[in-house]
């Protein structure tokens, strides 16, 4: 205890300098991670409030709480904020920024100034989008389909579109920064196959950010030009093609799903290794599966257009490619599950999130196979089945990983422990609330309830009420961590360097780490995840589980 108390008094990245300016102009990747934490949390709260209003409206079949115009603005704002300003930046921005340099044993990202610029672009984009949402509102759905968005709606498409555009550059620059850092700044001995899987998955994410986001930028510029100057690319009365927009949009936005899920998979690999105290089963397969997902993800955008009148042959090709993406995802799930075999499994909060992730991601992924199946998709396309599916992947996947990671690295980030009991309660509430919210939506979708409906036939009320009830539980599950994390900052016990008995360079430095991350530049002289006894690097007298 006394050594821990001493550690807390040592200079670290939090107390090295003080004052607002020292934060707003910081070049420290860890502080920038904290800035992202504040930013994405704010957008998450707003997006969450919109979601609660949506669920409240849908408690009754009649559209009685808000007017249709307001409802359309609600689900659009919910989607835009959650996708572009929470799900995409959350894990890379907060955890990726904080951890990648430490995990590879260096003192910062390759371009610290660029990193700060990324955060400012993110905030600027978010502010613009929010400004548009507050000033005029936008009612196109987060997908901005033309010609509704380009010619018909009277709402603030341009400011919101430009906000998303600016934010895109934040993602591109972060991706570039991560890639260069991972290539150039690994500690001596940190070979590619000694990288934690967290780093591999972030590398794959960065690849998509750098290659995909420019297409989104082009798409949004075309949309803005179409709206402002009527250039006619998407306008059928001028010989344009509105469906062309969908191709462009999904060329980015399908891979964007992997921008959201790969970082979460990154976290899950770390959690499972740490709480099973075992090397991830099939390390190489899991690493290459990330890259496989990133590459294949670029070839499947047409599965969003199976009913848009595209040729049946194009549909067939896109369906086949979509099926193939299921394989690397399945490989990951099997490998994670098998890591538990002969492990030393403990059930602390982060592990509960990780196990919950496996369950939810599996349902999300399997229903993805459903939707990739042509004959099935025609019936459920643009119904609540799709809404349920992508919430399983994006909320069940990304948010479970994000929260699990936040709990796991909270002691490292802040130097304090959060209360385990409340952590477990929150993990449980999130899991139960999530399933109650979204499982009924699969059923509603199959029964035919279209998405983005403000009112619906009475026979669907029971399932909608269940869904809304689930949303309240889910909301509670999200509020709890805010409370106990805040509490832990003031009153939480000191964490010490390695409260979990985990392996990895981040656990070999102080909590919170010093500004330069390590007192001495580390050298990686053993394999990654050295848990099993007798492996080099497996210190501190832990024993293998051979006893039972």
């Amino acid at each position, binding site marked *: 205890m006394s050594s821990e108390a001493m550690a807390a008094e040592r200079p670290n990245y939090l107390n090295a300098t003080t004052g607002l300016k020292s934060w707003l102009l910081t070049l420290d990747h860890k502080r920038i991670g904290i800035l992202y934490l504040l930013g994405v949390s704010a957008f998450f709260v707003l997006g969450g409030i919109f979601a609660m209003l949506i669920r409240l409206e849908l408690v009754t079949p009649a559209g009685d709480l808000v007017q249709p115009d307001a409802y359309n603005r609600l689900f659009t704002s919910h989607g835009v904020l959650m996708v572009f300003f929470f799900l995409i930046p959350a894990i890379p921005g907060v955890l990726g920024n904080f951890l990648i340099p430490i995990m590879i044993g260096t003192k910062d990202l390759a371009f610290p100034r660029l990193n700060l610029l990324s955060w400012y672009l993110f905030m600027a984009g978010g502010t613009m989008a929010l400004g548009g949402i507050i000033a005029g509102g936008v009612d196109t759905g987060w997908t901005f389909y033309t010609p509704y968005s380009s010619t018909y709606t009277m709402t603030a498409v341009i400011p919101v579109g430009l906000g998303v555009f600016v934010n895109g550059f934040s993602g591109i620059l972060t991706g570039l920064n991560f890639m260069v850092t991972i290539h150039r700044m690994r500690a001596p001995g940190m070979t590619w196959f000694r990288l934690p899987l967290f780093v591999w998955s972030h590398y794959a994410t960065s690849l998509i950010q750098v290659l995909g986001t420019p297409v989104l930028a082009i798409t949004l510029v075309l949309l803005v030009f179409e709206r402002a100057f009527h250039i006619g690319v998407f306008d059928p009365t001028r010989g344009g093609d509105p469906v062309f927009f969908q191709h462009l949009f999904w060329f980015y936005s399908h891979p964007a799903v992997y921008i959201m899920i790969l970082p979460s998979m990154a976290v899950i690999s770390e959690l499972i290794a740490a709480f099973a105290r075992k*090397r991830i089963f099939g390390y190489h397969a899991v690493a290459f599966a990330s890259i496989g997902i990133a590459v294949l993800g670029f070839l499947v955008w047409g599965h969003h257009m199976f009913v848009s009148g595209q040729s049946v042959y194009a549909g067939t090709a896109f369906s086949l490619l979509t099926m193939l993406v299921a394989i690397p995802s399945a490989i990951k799930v099997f490998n994670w599950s098998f890591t538990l075999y002969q492990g*030393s499994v403990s059930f602390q909060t982060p592990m509960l999130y990780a196990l919950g992730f496996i369950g939810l991601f599996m349902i999300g992924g399997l229903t993805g196979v459903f939707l990739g199946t042509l004959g099935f998709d025609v019936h459920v396309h643009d119904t609540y089945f799709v809404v349920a599916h992508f919430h399983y992947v994006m909320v069940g996947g990304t948010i479970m990983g994000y929260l699990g990671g936040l709990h796991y690295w909270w002691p490292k980030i802040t130097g304090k422990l959060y209360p385990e009991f409340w952590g477990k309660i929150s993990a449980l509430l999130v899991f139960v609330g999530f399933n109650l919210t979204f499982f009924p939506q699969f059923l509603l979708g199959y029964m035919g309830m279209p998405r983005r409906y403000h009112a619906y036939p009475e026979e669907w009320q029971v399932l909608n009420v269940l869904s809304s009830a689930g949303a309240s539980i889910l909301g509670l599950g999200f509020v709890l961590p805010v409370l106990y994390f805040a509490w832990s900052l003031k009153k939480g016990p000191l964490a010490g360097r390695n409260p979990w008995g985990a392996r990895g360079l981040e656990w070999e430095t102080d909590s919170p780490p010093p500004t330069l991350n390590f007192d001495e530049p580390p050298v990686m002289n053993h394999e990654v995840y050295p848990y099993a006894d007798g492996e080099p690097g497996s210190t501190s007298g832990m024993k293998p589980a051979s006893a039972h």
Partner: protein
Amino acid sequence: MNFKIPFVPEQASTMARDVDQLTFFLVGMAVFFTVLIAVMVLYFALRYRRRAADQVGSSFDHSTLLEVTWTVIPLLIVLFTFGWGAKVYFRLYRPPADAVQYYVTGKQWMWKAQHPTGQREINELHVPVGQPTRLLMTSEDVIHSFFVPAFRTKADVVPGRYTSLWFTPTKPGRYHLFCTEYCGAEHSRMIGWVTVQEPEEHQRWLASVPVQTAPAVAGGELYARLACGNCHREEPGLAGPPLHGLFGREVELADGRTVRADEQYLRESILRPGAKVVAGYQPVMPSYQSQVTEENVLALIDYIKSLEGVAR
């Protein structure tokens, strides 16, 4: 099947059963994998739970045999799923040759339908049971989507082009019709009913509706009013090619391509004649974009389709 399966909408078309069978297979597959993983994870997690604070896991961390197994088996399963799905998809979008054609126009926020015999309906469509029915659809403004859950089919309705879907109703009744592509303020009110009737009842219904001119006849009147005949007649020699017997034929274009004269092509020829110029003719035909509505275009097309004649 007489009992009602919960959460499965009424099966009221020939395709509904096919789609549901595919669904049952998918659900079965999903349940199998979910149970497999859940049992595996829970069993391993409890069996190998940590019993002492300093306990670590074993060094068993890869097995080529296992990894190949769980790559290949899912691959085979998804390929099979793909094949089955594609088969159903082709049937869903390939109308039978004898399908009777109706016209549907979507506009913010209503569905307009026209029968081949001229009757018009709004947010309603009456069809006889057992009749293969094809809808040729377009939109006057934004993208909409025509969806009848009981028939398990839908298709987007896109401005500037024709899309189509078909169904053969199997059961009399009233079935929900929804717009499933978000189209603005009243999207959730762009709904209606498809009413499937016994043939005799349908005949009575048809007779009870004030008959309007059938689309082909209305098209003929338009054709005369817009003086298309100044350039297009049955006999060649005028400024434009004869339109008799044109529908369904291959047309040679001035730039060397050939296209099939389907509805999409006819539509484009009327609205943007310069886009595809027929070989051997000057591009002198004016665009009728500003003079005709979507319904007019459909009527003209129906009229041109009715012009039988010698192939050029």
